[in-house]
């Protein structure tokens, strides 16, 4: 029996456009739909649950699939499966769920699966403070699964960016065949703000490369192009290809005893991100041209930082802000360049110092002051301003 809707799919409003008022979590869900996501598998967790709730309502309307899995391990596994069946897929979670996903994030890296994982960060470790903001999963996003690999992580500072960077995350995941994270936080996720959603035809959407040749016996599903990314065949097209979490050759066949195969594959998985980092990395440079002191910040902390920089300028301090939209791959050269031109750098983070380590490494001789914040409240602009003053006296 075939069941068809009496409404033509094109009549259903796929993407909600125009000026809207919504929460960050909902904006992220809408961004995913606008990017072409049609599969969501997840498990309820504060403060990311609203993404799942919104997807459970919206996806069936537009012929997509929402499924609540038995845990986060299953959620990410199902997302990888759906992506291999040719559908743009995502999940959304927070710290504890992100921890459970780590093994299969490695599988997604190894099998070069385009997928998006939104982590609305809360206070950890362990169950921590579920309803409070945090930026404590920055290093876990980079290093959480075992082995050597590279991923992409983006950090939104506003509800608008929850939309924009979720679209961007899908584009990057598809372009580089890599799991891509949106590292939001509880404040950005739960905050309500104005969002301008562009018409679909004006939105830049990237889709994975498909094999050019029709199915043949010689198809090698992991043979990369010059950009180090292989075109992706999906299940059901007739390619009869194999994918595995084991170290494999270009045909996808296990090569568990070859140092050459291990070196070639793992180096390429790292290099496809490292060598394309100039195309991936996005930062925002504000009032840095003549700055004596720079704040390097991301996510919710960057909003207070911007306010602090403006206050500093009013007070006669030459301050600037380097806002990181991309956390991984780390914008090392951008930070290094800023460090050369300023006397000091201030890093406010809602953790005990994570991106701080990367900034210190890139800043070399330039002193870096760290402002930690844990718990309910984000940084106050005044605190960041005082820290900037402190570096110049």
């Amino acid at each position, binding site marked *: 029996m075939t069941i068809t809707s009496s409404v033509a799919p094109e009549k259903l409003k796929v993407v909600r456009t125009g000026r809207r008022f919504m929460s960050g979590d909902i904006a992220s869900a809408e961004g995913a739909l606008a990017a072409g996501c049609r599969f969501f598998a997840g498990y309820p967790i504060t403060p990311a649950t609203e993404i799942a709730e919104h997807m459970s309502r919206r996806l069936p309307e537009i012929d997509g699939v929402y499924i609540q*899995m038995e845990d986060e391990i299953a959620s990410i596994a199902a997302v990888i499966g759906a992506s291999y069946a040719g559908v743009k897929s995502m999940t959304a979670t927070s710290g504890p769920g992100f921890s459970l996903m780590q093994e299969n994030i490695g599988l997604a890296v190894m099998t070069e699966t385009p997928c998006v994982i939104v982590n609305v960060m809360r206070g950890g470790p362990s169950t921590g403070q579920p309803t409070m903001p945090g930026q404590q999963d920055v290093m876990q996003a980079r290093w959480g699964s075992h082995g050597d690999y590279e991923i992409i992580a983006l950090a939104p500072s506003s509800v608008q960016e929850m939309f924009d960077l979720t679209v961007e995350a899908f584009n990057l995941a598809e372009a580089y065949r890599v799991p891509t994270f949106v590292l939001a936080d509880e404040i950005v996720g739960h905050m309500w703000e104005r969002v301008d959603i562009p018409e679909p035809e004006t939105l830049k959407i990237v889709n994975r490369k498909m094999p050019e040749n029709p199915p043949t016996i010689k198809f090698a599903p992991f043979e990369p192009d010059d950009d180090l990314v292989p075109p992706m065949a999906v299940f059901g097209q007739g390619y009869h290809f194999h994918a595995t*979490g084991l170290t494999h050759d270009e045909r996808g066949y296990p090569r568990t005893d070859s140092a050459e195969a291990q070196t070639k594959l793992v180096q390429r998985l790292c290099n496809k991100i490292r060598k394309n980092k100039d195309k991936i990395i996005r930062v925002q440079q504000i009032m840095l041209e003549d700055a004596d002191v720079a704040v390097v910040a991301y996510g919710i902390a960057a909003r207070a930082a911007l306010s602090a920089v403006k206050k500093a300028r009013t007070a006669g301090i030459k301050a600037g802000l380097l806002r990181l939209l991309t956390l991984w791959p780390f914008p090392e050269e951008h930070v290094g360049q800023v460090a050369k031109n300023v006397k000091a750098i201030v890093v406010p983070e809602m953790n005990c110092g994570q991106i701080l380590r990367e900034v210190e490494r890139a800043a070399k001789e330039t002193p870096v002051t760290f402002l930690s914040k844990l718990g309910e409240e984000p940084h106050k602009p005044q605190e960041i301003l005082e820290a900037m003053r402190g570096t110049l006296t």
Partner: protein
Amino acid sequence: MTGEELRHPYEKFLRKDRIPHIWCEGCGNGIILNCFARALDELNIDLDKVAVVSGIGCIGRISGYTNTDSFHTTHGRAIAFATGVKLANPELTVAVISGDGDLFAIGGNHFIHAARRNLDIKVICANNFIYGMTGGQGGPTTPLNTWTTTTPYGSIEQAFNLVHLATACGAVYVARWTTLQTRWLTESIKKSLQKEGFSFVEVISECPEIFGRYNKMATALKMMKWFKEASDVQHFSDPAKAEITPSRIVIGEFIDIEKPSYGRLLREMKARIGDKKASR
């Protein structure tokens, strides 16, 4: 036949460039692969529309040998991965072929929930009573008082009765065979491939190399002899009473019922939503 190359009848179901396989001499996995290929052949299924998904373990390597789209997942996650595949492309026949440790220890949660949802996937479990790939440790199906590398004094854990578990969780088709009953096994795989919803076929598979060696059945022949003597065909008997003991392995079909699959209910829900929107 002169001038013609001799070909194996199931050659097209295998990735020839992956043969020889890694399985030990006398292993039951080859029989399971053969029966699976035979089932696909007899049903004349379009191989372009079949996805074989496996987890980690000896039988987990089967996805590398079937000439279909295939995915070798992380340990225990084959069913969760298959869930995404099936829901994203309902046209595909999705078969999960994996081991007892993979599906019922580390992956047990996914099994019970996929069965509960009546997700339209076909699970074939090769049950060899141990973890073969890692050298023969005890697991959730190791029978009481049997010897493995981690039960040197005999196992003191109760074993899962897999057909009972699958039935309780809601599977619409449940069968158990040993690798001795290849024709019945093939028929059950065929039935499961045609069935709407979550189906489960358990195959008691011989591992003479480890389980056999530790339990006085060190050759495939000796294990087969045990299967022959212990097998008791009891179609549609109570799965709760089908525990495996040294003297009795109840085999046959246990469950064959009709229930709407998750995929069907999803399609119907989407149709309802479409109609509601149209009438607004």
